[in-house]
């Protein structure tokens, strides 16, 4: 073969790329902008029935009796199910399946499911829910995570209220605190953010005459959803098909089981009729996962010259009633709690605690958001106190590739922090910040400009399997079907996969068809979480492609009798000794000879060999890095804050699609603005005070600042064409950057998010009162 085939990492020497690195339009764009794309919740079936879930009436109560007779006898009701109707294991949960599918003895939050109903109409189903009579005995509600950790608190689970505890220790912090020239110590609180995906949880379940179950439900890992369904149903997973893509937004909130098991259970009782569940927003608010609220206590020691000496962290995360991924969230938080810096002495500790406050789970950033705001605020405070430039102090302390991180491990993969900081200090907003700050729109409005930097592990860390898989199949019409397990969650990985395939197969992108998230069509390639899907799925496609090239080259040689060396792999065609052979002809030949037209590619993610003791999975092999610069304007009379400009400087390795990357940096920045300034799901005594978008405000287009993206492309050797992940770090440093910018504007440090107008106003007022008092 003459063509210089690129190897599976996509390194093809200096060949300019046709598709990779280009602003390729999203392949799913047209059907999305016309509304022709069918999401799972858009399907309709003539013979359908409606499913509904009965939620717990109280946040913490013992179930004495459940009476379903009345509900069952309501005309139009097809099935009423309780825990007694679960054939298999009554529980789910990605790590520890401690959440009952349907509660049997105790309810631990108002999102708990107690019964399921299937009925002819949604109104009848709703009515039937009201007829299920559950007798409860009320139990004391656990709402404060710190108190939950005490001995006197009611215990929500057999192992107590501390679901997990991680601890990392290096060096000697006590000695370092003695030696330090400056010590900063603070406590930070962060909110319970809602994913607020626009498509609420929902989907379809159907069982056919042979007992084969199909679940169509947006999710972030079809194979794991299938395993969890099979476990609850005591059913052969091979007899369950899960279709999980496309998704109308998820951000981690559809990583855990949402309604899949309910759908499967109901489908077993509807006589083959398809059953639909689609949550109202109100139900989604109560039943859906949220971001863990954290309390973070941090004590940081530093030398006069700005060298970080020690960091002590204690973080407590409220996971609500069930674990889901809570343990992993806390572990990741602790792994990232010292920022991308090298601090020789650390004492870090995190607790994941059960309460009756709804349920928390995976959410973009996965615990790093909550600790980044602490360490980066400290960096800002230290810089100010020592009179060092905020960029310089960071540059001084960041670790470089090959150096030892605060976790004590040598970072072997690419590290872009230093470069992102260089770009930051040279960007217009930073260089001319004094000028911009002077341009406030009103005399009572004050502007501030600040920056922050952070990082985020890519992939699963130690202890969890992490692999990618993809298949490429030549179709009858001569197109290539690229099938990857990772779902299209909105981030544009489908286009990335098509770009990688088109690049390596040297064909037009229109010749690529991408299929995702379907256990009957895609191989198990892990989750679409942990910023891993471009990196892992892309690399799997890049591994499969050369197998397709070999298959077709060999086939062409066999068809024509031309020796392999004379077969040329050219753009959109194969030429054998001057004769052009179309993909279609190759398909026909393979088909006539009853041969497979499908190849596979598998990829094991590189991992660190040694786990840091007590860390719960740290370190990661790979991290993505990002620096944010922001400008805010604070109305000092009301405390209202606008973010006016954002500069996002990611190190995502080689950028496969700049437009897709900007989609992430822009979407992440605005989600970070919402988190910092106004989002919080309020729960009091276990009851949600927040109900819908009327009282949970997410950023609208009015809040969109000017956002610039300047990627630093530190190629990561192990990734497809040098790419890394990006999906999460895009919303992290902006949080701390906004907090510091508010300080820069007003002199008020906000340590309790969201930084609502009220909190900012009060902080400014307090400041004024302090200033008015004569110094003692």
């Amino acid at each position: 073969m003459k063509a210089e085939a690129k190897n599976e990492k996509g390194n093809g020497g200096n060949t300019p790329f046709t598709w990779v690195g280009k602003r390729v339009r999203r392949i799913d764009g047209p059907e999305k902008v016309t509304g022709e794309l069918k999401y799972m919740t858009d399907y309709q079936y003539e013979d359908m029935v409606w499913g509904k879930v009965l939620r717990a009436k109280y946040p913490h109560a013992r179930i004495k009796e459940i009476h379903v007779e009345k509900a069952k006898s309501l005309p139009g009701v097809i099935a009423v199910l309780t825990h007694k109707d679960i054939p298999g294991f009554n529980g789910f949960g990605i790590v520890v399946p401690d959440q009952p599918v349907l509660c049997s003895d105790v309810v631990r939050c108002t999102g708990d499911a107690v019964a399921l109903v299937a009925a002819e109409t949604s109104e009848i189903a709703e009515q039937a829910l009201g007829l299920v009579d559950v007798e409860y005995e009320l139990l004391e509600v656990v709402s404060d995570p710190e108190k939950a950790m005490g001995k006197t608190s009611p215990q929500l689970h057999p192992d107590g209220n501390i679901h997990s505890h991680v601890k990392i220790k290096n060096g000697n912090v006590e000695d370092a605190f003695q030696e330090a020239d400056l010590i900063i110590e603070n406590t930070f609180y962060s909110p319970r953010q809602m994913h607020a995906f626009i498509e609420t949880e929902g989907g379809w379940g159907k069982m056919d005459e042979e007992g084969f179950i199909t679940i169509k439900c947006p999710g972030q890992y079809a194979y794991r959803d299938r395993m969890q369904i099979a476990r609850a149903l005591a059913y052969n997973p091979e007899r369950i098909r899960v279709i999980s893509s496309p998704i109308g937004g998820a951000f981690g909130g559809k990583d855990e089981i949402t309604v899949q098991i309910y759908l499967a259970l109901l489908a077993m009782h509807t006589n083959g009729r398809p059953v639909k569940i689609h949550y109202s927003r109100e139900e989604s608010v109560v039943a859906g996962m949220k971001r863990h609220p954290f309390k973070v206590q941090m004590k940081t020691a530093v030398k006069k010259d700005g060298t970080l000496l020690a960091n002590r962290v204690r973080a407590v995360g409220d996971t609500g009633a069930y674990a889901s991924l809570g343990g992993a969230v806390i572990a990741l938080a602790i792994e990232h709690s010292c920022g991308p810096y090298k601090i020789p002495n650390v004492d870090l500790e995190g607790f994941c605690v059960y309460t009756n406050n709804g349920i928390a789970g995976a959410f973009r950033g996965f615990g790093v958001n909550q600790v980044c705001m602490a360490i980066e605020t400290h960096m800002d405070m230290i810089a100010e106190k020592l009179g060092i430039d905020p960029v310089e102090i960071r540059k001084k302390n960041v670790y470089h590739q090959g150096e030892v991180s605060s976790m004590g491990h040598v970072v072997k993969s690419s590290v872009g922090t230093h470069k992102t900081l260089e770009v930051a200090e040279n960007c217009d907003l930073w260089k001319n910040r004094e000028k911009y700050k002077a341009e406030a729109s009103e005399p009572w409005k004050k502007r501030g400009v600040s920056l922050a930097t952070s990082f985020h592990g890519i992939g699963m860390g130690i202890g969890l399997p992490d692999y990618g898989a993809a298949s490429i199949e030549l179709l009858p019409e001569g197109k290539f079907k690229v099938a990857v397990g990772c779902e299209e969650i909105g981030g544009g990985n489908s286009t990335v996969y098509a770009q990688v395939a088109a690049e390596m197969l040297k064909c037009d992108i229109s010749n690529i068809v991408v299929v995702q998230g379907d256990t009957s069509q895609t191989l198990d390639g892990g989750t679409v979480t942990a910023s891993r899907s471009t990196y892992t799925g892309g690399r799997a496609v890049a591994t499969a492609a050369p197998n397709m090239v070999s298959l077709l080259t060999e086939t062409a040689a066999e068809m024509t009798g031309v020796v392999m060396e004379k077969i040329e792999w050219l753009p959109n065609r194969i030429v054998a000794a001057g004769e052009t052979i179309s993909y279609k002809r190759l398909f026909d030949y393979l088909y006539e000879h009853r041969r497979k037209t499908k190849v596979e590619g598998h990829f094991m993610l590189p991992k660190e060999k040694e786990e840091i003791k007590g860390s719960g999975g740290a370190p990661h092999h790979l991290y993505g890095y990002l620096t944010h610069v922001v400008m805010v304007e604070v109305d000092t009379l009301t405390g209202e804050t606008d973010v006016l400009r954002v500069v996002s400087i990611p190190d995502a390795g080689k950028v496969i699609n700049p437009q897709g990357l900007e989609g992430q940096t822009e979407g992440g920045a605005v989600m970070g603005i919402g988190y910092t300034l106004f989002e919080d799901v309020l729960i009091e005594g276990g009851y949600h005070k927040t109900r819908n978008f009327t009282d949970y405000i997410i950023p609208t287009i009015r809040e969109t600042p000017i956002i610039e993206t300047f990627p630093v492309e530190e190629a990561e050797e192990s990734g497809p064409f040098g790419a890394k992940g990006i999906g999460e770090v895009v919303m992290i440093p902006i949080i701390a950057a906004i907090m510091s910018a508010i300080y820069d504007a007003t002199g008020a440090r906000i340590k309790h998010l969201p930084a609502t107008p009220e909190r900012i106003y009060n902080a400014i007022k307090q400041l004024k009162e302090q200033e008015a008092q004569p110094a003692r």
Partner: protein
Amino acid sequence: MKPIRFTVNGSPREVNCHPSKTLLDVLREDLNLTASKECCGKGECGSCSILVDKEVICSCLVLAGQAEGMDITTCEGVGLTANMDIVQEAFVSEGATQCGYCTPGLIVSSRAFLNSIEHIPSVSEIKTALGGNLCRCTGYAKIIRAVETAAKHQLENKGKLSLR
């Protein structure tokens, strides 16, 4: 039940349903026009936006009975993949859609806005026009650009028309 009659995307339609069913459900369930989505059911998010005459309304807040005689345009009526409208083209080329669940509502609102102007709008005009449509994925920056691009193309097309 008395049939309810209205026009959708240029065609007269007739449905038999409970008059208290929402127009959004009628479009989605009775007419299989599923571009319009339900996200909040409360008039807060705009993902159910449709055009009635020249106005953008939230179809989750309209009851089927009230739709009698209305002239309705949904996202499907703005354009389909075979004949995309310039605003849809611009959303694709500018990368203004991600998960896409909010997109049909934004397309409808953007089309209505473009129908009402004869100039290239300022960012603040766009923000006002689309302030009722929530999107959780994009951060809106590319949506703003897409509307600008579409406005430009609309003007160019009109310019061409006037030359004829």
